[in-house]
């Protein structure tokens, strides 16, 4: 009995030793598939199919916005057909739950396993930055329909990442400050912004636009993103007694929550100027007729008098059971229509050729208006001062009352000056 046991042990040791030796020998030389990757860029060029990997959070905290961004993209191909100029568009949707690590893994999967030609998305700033850095390193173009982080096209800009369906946080709000100080006739302002990168950038844009044109920001208040009760902020705003109140949220519940607290104190609606997302369609639907006349500043105006905008709004209303599209849906839609326009004009392109074609293109008749791209691949386009109105179909729309054309991301500086500044924060507002 003991001898058999000992011999089993000996044979196990022998097998283990052999295994380890074999493993070491194998490690010494590179595995068969380990050469330079040939997948991805241009993999399917010429066959007439452009495969798009679309990353968006369709579960988790950002599921609503993430689904909207994809719906906008999908709506364009559904209404216009998924074939452009002989190129068939195939989209693979991946969920990242708003988590950068998952975003990155999904990007790896799309590039390495599915061999996509382009990656569109993701939604949240940090996921966008993580994916943009990876796609650039493997030569895959990356289109960003919604992410608003300034640095995506400034300090972290790369040749293959283009912001296609939105603007930087400071860029989109600078004209709001300019308008308030000039046409709006406001002398002093108090700001209330979300206390993280997007809020800091939005407030910085507004403040610089306002103060460069003679206005004065008397107080800046910051709220944590998770705030639900805005009553203390509303009283602080009342106490500041400024001519104008500028509010920037990142969308979702804070917009309506703030408005309820502010209007609940009996404060006047015509002293308010909101950013894109605080006055997005979600807020309009929640608040209803009591916010008619509310002003805001954004690159997207669903009530703009133009054929393409009307066509898009009608198509979305039909697809969604009567809802008017907000900025995230528009971001997905304009990205799709931009890609279609470029393919229509230039035929099938991949890799850096596609990015060059997009950034040298001027999209004259987009749902945003006339849009072009700067050297850092950021949108240069119109920014609207909007006012909530009830149109004939009974829905509330943000209708432009003033338009600033060709707004760029440098806020009146040269790119070099702008990039030499620190990033915006509570303490640095430019």
């Amino acid at each position, binding site marked *: 009995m003991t001898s058999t*046991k000992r011999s*089993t*042990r000996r044979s*196990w040791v022998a*097998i*283990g030793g052999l*295994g*380890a030796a*074999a*493993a070491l020998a*194998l*490690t010494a030389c*590179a*595995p*068969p*598939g*380990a*050469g*330079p*990757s040939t*997948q991805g860029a241009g993999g399917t060029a010429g066959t007439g199919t452009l495969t798009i990997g679309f990353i968006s959070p*369709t*579960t*988790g905290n950002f599921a609503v916005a993430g689904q909207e961004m994809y719906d906008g993209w999908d709506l364009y191909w559904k209404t216009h057909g998924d074939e452009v100029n002989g190129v068939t568009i195939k989209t693979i949707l*991946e*969920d990242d*739950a*708003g*988590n*950068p*690590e*998952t975003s*990155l*893994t*999904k990007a*790896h*999967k799309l590039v*390495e*396993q599915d061999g996509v030609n382009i990656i569109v998305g993701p939604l949240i*700033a*940090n996921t966008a*930055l*993580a994916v943009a*850095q*990876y796609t650039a*390193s*493997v030569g895959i173009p990356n289109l960003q329909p919604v992410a608003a*982080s300034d*640095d995506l096209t400034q300090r*972290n800009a790369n040749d293959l990442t283009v912001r296609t369906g939105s603007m930087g946080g400071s860029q989109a709000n600078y004209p709001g400050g300019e308008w308030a100080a000039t046409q709006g006739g406001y002398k002093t302002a108090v700001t209330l912004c979300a*206390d*993280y*990168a*997007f809020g*800091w950038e939005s407030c910085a844009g507004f403040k610089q636009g306002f103060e460069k044109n003679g206005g004065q920001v008397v107080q800046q208040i910051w709220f944590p993103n998770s705030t639900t009760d805005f009553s203390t902020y509303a009283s602080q705003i009342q106490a500041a007694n400024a001519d104008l109140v500028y509010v920037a949220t990142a969308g979702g519940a804070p917009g309506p929550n703030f408005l309820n607290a502010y209007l609940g104190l009996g404060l006047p609606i015509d002293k308010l100027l909101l950013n894109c997302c605080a006055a997005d369609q979600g807020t309009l639907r929640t608040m209803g007729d009591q916010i008619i006349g509310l002003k805001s500043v954004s690159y997207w105006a669903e009530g703009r008098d133009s054929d393409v905008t009307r066509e898009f709004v009608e198509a979305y209303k039909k697809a969604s059971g009567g809802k008017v599209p907000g900025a995230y849906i528009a971001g997905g839609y304009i990205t799709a229509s931009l890609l279609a326009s470029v393919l229509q004009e230039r035929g099938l392109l991949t890799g850096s050729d596609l990015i060059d074609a997009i950034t040298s293109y001027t999209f004259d008749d987009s749902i945003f208006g006339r849009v072009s791209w700067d050297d850092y691949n950021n949108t240069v386009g119109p920014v609207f001062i909007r006012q909530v109105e009830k149109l004939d179909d009974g829905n509330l729309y943000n209708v432009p009352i003033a338009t600033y054309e060709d707004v760029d991301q440098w806020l009146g500086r040269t790119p070099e000056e702008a990039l030499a500044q*620190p*990033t915006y*924060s509570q303490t640095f507002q430019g």
Partner: protein
Amino acid sequence: MKRSRIVSLALLALILVFGIAFPYLGASNFALSITTTILVAAILASSVNFLVGEGGMASLGHGAIAGASAYGAGWASKQGMDPGMQVLIAFGVTIVVSLVYGLLSMRTSGIYFLMVTLAVGMLIYGLAFRLSSITGGENGISNIARPQWIGNLAADGWKYYYVVLAGFVISTAVLWVVSRSPFGASLRGVRDSESRMRSLGYTVPAYRLAAFLISGIVAGFAGLLSVWQTHFVSPSSAGVDRSVLLIVMVILGGTGTLLGPLIGATIVILVENVLSSYVDRWPTILGLIFILVILFARAGIVGSIAKLLRRLRSRTAASPGGPPSPSDTSVSSTSNAA
């Protein structure tokens, strides 16, 4: 040497050989990168597992320790320091942070320990979010460099896979040795009866602090490995969600088992990253798996399989007649190691 011990060692060797041969079995780049992710998560989970299994201390702050280490490496890289300095700073930050955790929590246990680690974790998350001049705020730090010899991500995924595999083997071996040492035995004593250990003359808080430092250093190591894989760090890697998932991994695999963290990490990462491509409601599936394991396999997957094998063996041993021999019960206590 007991037969079951040999079997579990052979099983370990088999898994290791498979792990080493994996890139040669026609694994795609994506399969390699996801396995790397799993191994990094497994290192992190085994640091939590050590603390829970040996010390009875369930921490909700280990995601933040790994995050702090990752930020240390990221910051060093942003200042243009070489990878050697990155390692030094990452471990420096890890040790300082673990000390803070350990000193604050060493006199607590149970739910209070959980709350202290949760609070310190939130503090680190808050700093990562707000201290934008150092951490880049919500945008995080991107383009973090890693040592040249690992090569780049796209072409040489297999090299980094081996680095992480070696890291996993080393950290698992270190944790195993520590938990088999007299120190580990005292730690288990503290876990089972703090008052008895105190009356025996042990300085209980010191043991807790030391255990936390060891566990924290392994967590920091995982943080460094993850930053070299993704080249990126942002507040969400230090968030409480990550720490909760770590606990889920440990419980799924089986607390106090050697391979539990690997199994748990495999399930969670695969559901999160692979199953989610096919099933929209993947968080529900993860939840269901968790509930099923809690209901029907309280000792976790590895723990329950070990238990099941033990029961089968004792039944076959018992079938010729007579109760299981005492040697069988002693086997079962050592086979816990698997």
